[in-house]
């Protein structure tokens, strides 16, 4: 693991060195027309640093191209499913758990978090239909907030491991088997599942997110997971060691409760890994507004995690990955105040910051994404494609992501309370 890590960093450093060497004359030229400090800040933020990170990730993922298969287990497990006004989705989610090809018992612990719609009625109907090895336990948590609901569920878990699934996330038939095999074999503190988009054709926003989950998020988790440092075991679908979560104090009542928990687990020295073959289809925001709000929350969550456990307090490779996480703030700012103005300059015929090299970078990005796509395709788990979604993802998604993220960072810094 250490060798591969060093090799991937080395590759990234080599890429960086070549990039700097090739671009120095161009930077010197541009710095003549634009403020030099600004040019350097932008080029570092939109080219050098992302290039280093992405190339290291790409090389590492190439070295870890195979999907590990773990010995099959069938020990009993629990799925903690928190729901707040999910009458429309929860039945499908529970049905998907019923259909899991898993020999052991899956206790479905549904935590109704003060729903005011027909969620309880739907759960009760599903309880009547539950097979013997998929019993449903209903729990009511009147204290609003996902963390409270999760902690209420955690208090009732009786199995060695448990899985969290969002009420709008349908698991693929082998998801529980795969994630249980993984966590039982590796002893990880938590294992993040692989999320695909459940509603990829619902809107343009959903089509773009389809590729964000399929390509970007999956690639990052795979990279981090290869070194036992998946920074976010997402609440939508992850498996946990019950005792480890209890020792870590469960979930904090913050915006990014799953991020903070993962950071806490990492701090104890436990591995946080990723199982690409354990797939959950999650419902993504269908409007730009909802997407923006989600990414704002995620950005706040990232800072909450970093504040809860500083990078230097982490152990092993997690130290590196959480430090890199901090640099994302700089990358977002460079994108907004460097790349976007550069695009505007290009519209006026000034190709100093965005020009032919941007097109080349896009091409390199496509090659990178292609490798991730092939990996996902090889899993044999279906997902939908959308050409327009991919193009819009390439061209516009980062603008939404970076704007929402910077909003999230500022909200956190000025201690503004986030909203779901």
């Amino acid at each position, binding site marked *: 693991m250490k060798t591969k890590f060093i090799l991937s960093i080395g590759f990234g450093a080599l890429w960086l060195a070549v990039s700097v060497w090739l671009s120095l004359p161009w930077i010197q030229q541009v710095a003549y027309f*634009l403020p030099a400090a600004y040019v350097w800040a932008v080029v570092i933020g939109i080219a050098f640093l992302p290039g280093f990170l992405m190339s290291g990730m790409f090389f590492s993922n190439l070295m870890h191209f195979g999907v590990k298969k773990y010995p099959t287990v069938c020990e009993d497990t629990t799925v903690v499913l928190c729901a707040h006004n999910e009458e429309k989705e929860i039945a499908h989610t529970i049905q998907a758990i019923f259909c899991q090809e898993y020999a052991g018992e899956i206790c479905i612990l549904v935590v109704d978090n003060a729903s005011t719609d027909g969620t309880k009625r739907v759960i009760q109907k599903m309880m009547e239909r539950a097979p013997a090895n998929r019993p449903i336990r209903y729990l009511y948590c009147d204290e609003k907030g996902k963390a409270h609901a999760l902690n209420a569920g955690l208090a009732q878990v009786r199995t060695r491991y448990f899985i969290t699934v969002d009420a709008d996330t349908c698991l693929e038939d082998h998801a529980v088997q795969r994630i249980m095999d993984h966590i039982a074999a590796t002893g990880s503190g938590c294992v993040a599942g692989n999320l695909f988009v459940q509603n990829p054709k619902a809107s343009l926003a959903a089509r773009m997110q389809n590729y964000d989950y399929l390509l970007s998020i999956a690639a990052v988790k795979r990279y981090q997971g290869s070194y036992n440092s998946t920074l976010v075991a997402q609440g939508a679908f992850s498996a946990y060691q019950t005792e480890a979560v209890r020792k870590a104090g469960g979930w904090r009542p913050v915006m990014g409760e799953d991020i903070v928990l993962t950071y806490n687990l990492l701090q104890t020295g436990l591995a946080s890994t990723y199982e690409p073959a354990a797939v959950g289809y999650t419902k993504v925001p269908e409007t730009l507004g909802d997407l923006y709000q989600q990414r*704002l929350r995620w950005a706040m969550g990232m800072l909450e995690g970093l504040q809860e456990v500083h990078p230097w307090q982490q152990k092993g490779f997690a130290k590196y990955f959480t430090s890199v996480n901090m640099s994302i703030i700089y990358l977002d700012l460079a994108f907004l105040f460097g790349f976007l103005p550069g695009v505007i300059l290009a519209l006026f*015929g000034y190709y100093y910051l965005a020009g032919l090299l941007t097109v080349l970078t896009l091409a390199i990005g496509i090659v990178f994404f292609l490798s991730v796509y092939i990996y996902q395709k090889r899993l044999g788990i279906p997902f939908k494609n959308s050409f327009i979604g991919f193009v819009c993802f390439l061209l516009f998604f980062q603008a939404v992501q970076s704007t929402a993220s910077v*909003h999230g960072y500022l909200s956190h810094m000025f201690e503004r309370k986030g909203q779901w």
Partner: protein
Amino acid sequence: MRINNRMFVCLTALAVGITAFGLLRGLDRRARRAAIPAQDLSCGPVIALTFDDGPNARHTPQLLDVLYETQTPATFFVVGDQIDGQERLLREIADSGHEIGSHTNTHVKLTQITEGQARVEMEAVASKIRQTLDGYEPRFVRPPYGEYPQWMEEAPDLELALWTMDSGDWLHPNADLIVERVLSLAKDGDVVVLHDDNPATVEAVARIIPALKEKGFRFATLRQMEQAGYTVTR
């Protein structure tokens, strides 16, 4: 979208726009420079600084800054291949009041090609100049390496403009050597050949101009020099 979020998006868009506007204003500052006026050539020795092989993305802008700060008109013999992608720079040269001449399209040795090929070369660069500068017709032609076939000297439609002093910057790209050579040889009516693809030349020109001014020299484009009664063509 929630109102708070909408406001932040608008603020961010505004901030991005302001950043872009600020950058454009900075870039436009160069384009808004007034053209360098012609100097009074009637009293004192006159010298023409000419620059071959540009426009160069890196060094020509620096040179233009030096010429602007010292209010020195000059002549640029540009290569067609160099114009590609540097149209804005060519416009800046022209807008600054400098003269533009032809130095062929590919910097080819004119003695090694046929007349037909040579005419294609010169028409190609002239066409690029016309297209970029809204019909500007380059009057003077400077053959690369100073070598030209006999037919060019006799062609009535070509005005060959060579030089009387070689700065040597192409051979010894060293600012001290360039400055020493030019200052020691400069005389009234000289046409100095330099190259604006060379950082040493930029540094040297920044020193040459004030030094020659102190000696009483006036600077001119080739056309201005010719109008003042000097011979600039073969």
